[in-house]
C-alpha cells in the first residue's frame, strides 16, 4: 500500500515520522510478549516440545513487531518487505526441506 505522504522521488523530507507514542506502544507489546515467553517456558516446562515451538513462535511474533514498527517496514517502500520475505523464505525452505529429508530416511 502506497502512502500518500510519500512522493515519487522518495526524498527524506516526505518520509513518515513515527510518533514517540507509537514507539512506546511497540515496546509495551514486546515486553508483554517477553513476559509470555518466560511464563510459557517456566510453567510449561513439563511440556518440553510444546514449549520449544511456543517459545519460537512468540520470538517470531516479536521479530515481526520489531521489523514492522521499529525498523519502519510499515512505512517504507514495499520493496523492503518483499526482500525481507524473500530472505526468510529462502532460510526456512532450506531448513525445513533439509529436516524433512533427514527425518524421512
Amino acid at each position, binding site marked *: 500500500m502506497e502512502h500518500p505522504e510519500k512522493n515519487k522521488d522518495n526524498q*527524506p523530507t516526505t518520509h513518515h515520522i513515527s510518533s514517540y507514542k507509537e514507539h512506546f506502544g511497540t515496546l509495551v507489546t514486546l515486553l508483554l510478549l517477553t513476559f509470555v515467553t518466560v511464563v510459557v517456558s517456566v510453567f510449561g516446562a513439563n511440556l518440553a516440545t510444546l514449549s520449544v515451538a511456543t517459545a519460537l513462535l512468540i*520470538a517470531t511474533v516479536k521479530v515481526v513487531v520489531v521489523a514492522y514498527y521499529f525498523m519502519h517496514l510499515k512505512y517504507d517502500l514495499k*520493496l523492503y518487505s518483499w526482500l525481507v520475505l524473500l530472505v526468510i523464505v529462502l*532460510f526456512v525452505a532450506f531448513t525445513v526441506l533439509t529436516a524433512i529429508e533427514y527425518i524421512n530416511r
Partner: protein
Amino acid sequence: MEHHTGFVLPNSGHNRDAEASKLGMWLFLFTELLLFGGLFIVYMVYRYMNHDAFLMSSFELSPVMGTINTIVLLVSSMTIAMSITAIQKGNTKTAIKLMSLTVFLAFVFLVIKYFEWSAKIHHGLFPGMEHYTNLPKGEALFFFLYFFMTGLHAFHIIIGVIFIGVVISKTKKGLLTSDNYSLNENAGLYWHLVDLIWIYLFPLFYLIH
C-alpha cells in the same frame, strides 16, 4: 542550494540518495541474518542429536539474567527508534540524549553479559578449560555454541556502540539534521538487527527446558 557556477546538478546539489543508502544497509543486514541463520542451523542439528545434554546444560544458564538483558535490549531499541523521530522533528538535543541512552543500555547489557560469562568461566566451562574438556560431548557442544553465538552477538553490540557513537558525534557537529538523517536510520536498523538476533538467542539458550 543555489550555486553561481552556471551548472546545476540534476539532483539539486544533494549528493546523496537516502533510499539507496537504506537499501544498501538492508542488503548488509541480510548477510548478517544468513550468518546467524547458519549458526542457528548448526544449533538445531546438534540439539536434535544431543537433546538431553542440551536440556541439562541449559539449566546452568540464568533465565533471570537473560530476561533482564532482553528487557534492556528492547528498551534500547525503543530509544534508538525515538532518536530518529527526534532528529526528523529537528530536536537534535533530544536525539543525542536518546542515542546516548541507547549506548548506556548497550553497556548495561555488556556488563550483565560479563558477569554471566565470568560465572561460567569460573566453573571452567569455557572451551579449552579443564572442566569443559571433561564434559560429555553434548554438553561441551552446548557451551561451545553458547560462547560462540553470544560472543559473536556481543561483538555486534560493540560494533553497534561504535556506530551509534559516530552518529552521535556527527549529529553534535550538525552534520546530521532533520533533512539528512540516513546515517541515524542506518545505525538504528543495525541496532534493531542486534536486538532481533537476541530475541532468538534468548529462548534457545536460556528458556528451552
